């Protein structure tokens, strides 16, 4: 391609990039910052040397935590031992097959020997290695490699990698949402560029980030958040380009009812916001007071020392007043911004023509789903994740009662990995249940013939009577 040079720069690690470190099946998100220590797998690493290299490069961790480029030659196993036994009938576990002692190995490590070399030493000093079958030798080397090879691969973050990372490291923070379940969610909700998607999640921003990745900066995402501020620590790890921020909107879930009933007024100051604002300001004032006191004390101390010389008390007061005013101004600006953001989000929601709804988290999904479904246009998909099946059963039953949805499905997925090797292919592990459950469906136009719900309420009654009649 003509713009290959440009392409290249996208694939190279730059300072400030959000990356994911990988060793074996273990991941860790990090940011490339010069001269900054990162701890990974009980080791301190400096990522400085990674800058300029391609993503997916494997590095060896040298002394002092610096990264050394691993040459492809070293990657290949150097074990040329072609001698191998046929079975283990003569292999006895006497605990003495390894002639190197623990201290010897420690010494080798201290000498700064590379992992590869230590492994070779271990093999050379194992009396049983040559009698092991070819497969057992492979397995032995693999095991030692895992322990002594000090390598780390640097990856570009993606929803695949981050979902696996979160599930491996902090499953509690994402409500045990397994990556295959997240994959189903994105597909079932038909997440794609150009749509308007509502997201309510308490999964550290993983689900939000995944949705944003699939939309590629086109369209809009409205994050419905509980509490005072939207929490999305995981979104940063995706390392999105800055323009992705433009499609991200936020709306506090506590104002949903007001918005639905039309009492939410974001243009002029309405009572609900005002009351919230006043609460906030009260809180802020308190916080600020604390801040001022904390910040003030050392300053004051130093000032006190100098004040003996010339500063008058008046001036100090003036200064403090000024600072207070500036803070108040800042706070006002922040609140104004928050109000603007909410107004923008409210305007997006007001049309009640959103294209998709994704719910995942620790809140009971039932009221969330019933509330937020009202913002969806007809014939749009929605998906709800829950770690447990029971709340989704409740949702299912409720949705059937309320109507306005079709194609309801309660599902979960099982994921099985396989080891595929010559003559040694077998399933690895079966994960089940732990990956959580999904309720998905499609909205349809609500029937206008029964806006009061009278028909529906009345209709089943005779049926029920009939049933009891026939039964009785």
């Amino acid at each position, binding site marked *: 391609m003509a713009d290959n040079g440009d392409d290249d720069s996208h694939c190279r690690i730059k300072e400030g990039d959000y990356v994911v470190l990988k060793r074996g099946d273990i991941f860790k998100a990090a940011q490339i910052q010069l001269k900054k220590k990162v701890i990974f797998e009980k080791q301190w690493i400096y990522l400085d040397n990674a800058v300029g290299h391609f993503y997916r490069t494997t590095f060896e961790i040298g002394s002092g935590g610096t990264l050394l480029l691993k040459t492809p030659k070293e990657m290949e196993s150097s074990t040329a031992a072609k001698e191998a036994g046929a079975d283990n009938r003569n292999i006895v576990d006497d605990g003495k097959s390894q002639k190197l002692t623990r201290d010897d190995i420690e010494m080798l490590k201290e000498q700064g020997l590379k992992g590869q070399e230590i492994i070779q030493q271990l093999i050379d000093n194992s009396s049983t290695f040559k009698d092991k079958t070819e497969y057992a030798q492979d397995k032995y080397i693999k095991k030692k490699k895992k322990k002594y090879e000090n390598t780390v691969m640097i990856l570009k973050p993606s929803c695949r990698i981050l979902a696996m990372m979160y599930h491996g490291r902090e499953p509690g923070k994402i409500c045990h949402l397994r990556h295959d379940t997240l*994959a189903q969610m994105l597909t079932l909700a038909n997440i794609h560029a150009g749509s308007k998607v509502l997201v309510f999640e308490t999964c550290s921003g993983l689900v939000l980030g995944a949705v944003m990745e699939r939309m590629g900066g086109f369209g809009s995402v409205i994050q419905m958040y509980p509490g005072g501020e939207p929490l999305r620590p995981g979104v940063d790890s995706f390392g999105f380009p800055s323009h992705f921020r433009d499609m991200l909107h936020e709306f506090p879930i506590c104002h949903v009812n007001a918005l639905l009933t039309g009492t939410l007024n974001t243009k002029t100051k309405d009572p609900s916001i005002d009351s919230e604002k006043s609460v906030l300001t009260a809180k802020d004032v308190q916080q600020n007071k604390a801040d001022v006191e904390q910040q003030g004390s050392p300053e004051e101390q130093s000032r006190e020392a100098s004040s003996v010389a010339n500063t008058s008390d008046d001036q100090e007061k003036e200064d403090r007043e000024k600072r207070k005013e500036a803070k108040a101004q800042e706070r006002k600006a922040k609140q104004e911004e928050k109000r603007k953001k909410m107004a923008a989000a409210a305007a997006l929601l007001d049309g009640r023509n959103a294209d998709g709804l994704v719910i995942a988290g620790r809140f009971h999904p039932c009221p969330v789903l019933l509330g937020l479904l009202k913002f969806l246009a007809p014939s749009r998909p929605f998906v709800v994740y829950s770690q447990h099946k029971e709340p989704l059963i409740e949702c299912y039953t409720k949705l059937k009662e309320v109507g306005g949805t*079709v194609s309801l499905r309660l599902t979960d997925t099982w994921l099985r990995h396989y080891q595929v090797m*010559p003559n040694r292919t077998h399933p690895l592990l079966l994960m089940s249940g732990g990956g959580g459950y999904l309720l998905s469906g499609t909205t349809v136009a609500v029937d206008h013939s029964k806006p009061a719900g009278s028909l529906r309420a009345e209709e089943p009654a005779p049926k029920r009577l009939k049933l009891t009649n026939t039964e009785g």
Partner: protein
Amino acid sequence: MSFVEYSDHIQDGDTAIIYLGHDSMMPVKVQHGAQTQTRYGAIRHSTDLIGKPYGSKVTCSKGGWVHVLHPTPELWTVTLPHRTQILYTTDIAMITMMLELRPGSIVCESGTGSGSLSHAILRTIAPTGHLHTVEFHQQRAEMAAQEFKEHRVDHLVTVRNQDVCKDGFGVVGVADAVFLDIPSPWEAVKHAKAAMKKQGGRVCSFSPCIEQVQRTCEALADQAFEEISTLEVLLRVHDVRTASLPLPDFGSDPTETSEKTAADSAPKQTNVTSQDHDAAPRDPGSHLGTSPSPPNPEPNGRNRENVSSRRF
């Protein structure tokens, strides 16, 4: 309508999905003056569909009614005309994530088959990505191209009628991801590598037999692919229904009055059923006015869904 962009109203030339009940849907090419027969009667496109919003309830000639849904790749997967075995949504979801597809991705696929995965890929990579799909069966290739045109996604896809194992994907050094669903994927691995960007990319191969997987893994390792992983995803669909289990009769207990035991057990049972009460009366068959008893004896969610959508 387009498979990569929602629109509110049904227009002439659209592909709409008629929802007849749970697991019962059909695609319809909307045309002025055309009619579609369903088991609830005929739908006249000019009056019943064109101009109506997606998601509307449409009353058919026999008085029954259906919902008209906006097409999505997922709905298309369960309604499309099969020309081959197809990939279903569960696998497609996993493939999309593991291949790291997103808007702007350049993807190579072979074979096109019935286009089930193709539509899902196109949805995900639009509006800036591109799909290069290869199908060696001439008729299938033509039909797929025709469908892409009808679904207004043809600007995002190039269909090539050639043998991927011999001739590759027809592009070199452009792909972010390659997907193989062919009988001998190991023969196409080198072409997959050639099609990929020089900075690398991701590849996925779908095979029913473990022997095929084995050979593919070897070929991948030979071509210096790394991080090879093999997996299987299984979908479980749960029926939501109320189960009530009969209580065994232990005979009369001399220490307790029999009346009391009966009183004890009775409310328990109703408690269990109460959760489902609202859905229960809407049993299948009732709206048809044919038989009072459900045609299908299993009182599961499927039946219930079927009916709740047709009651007016």
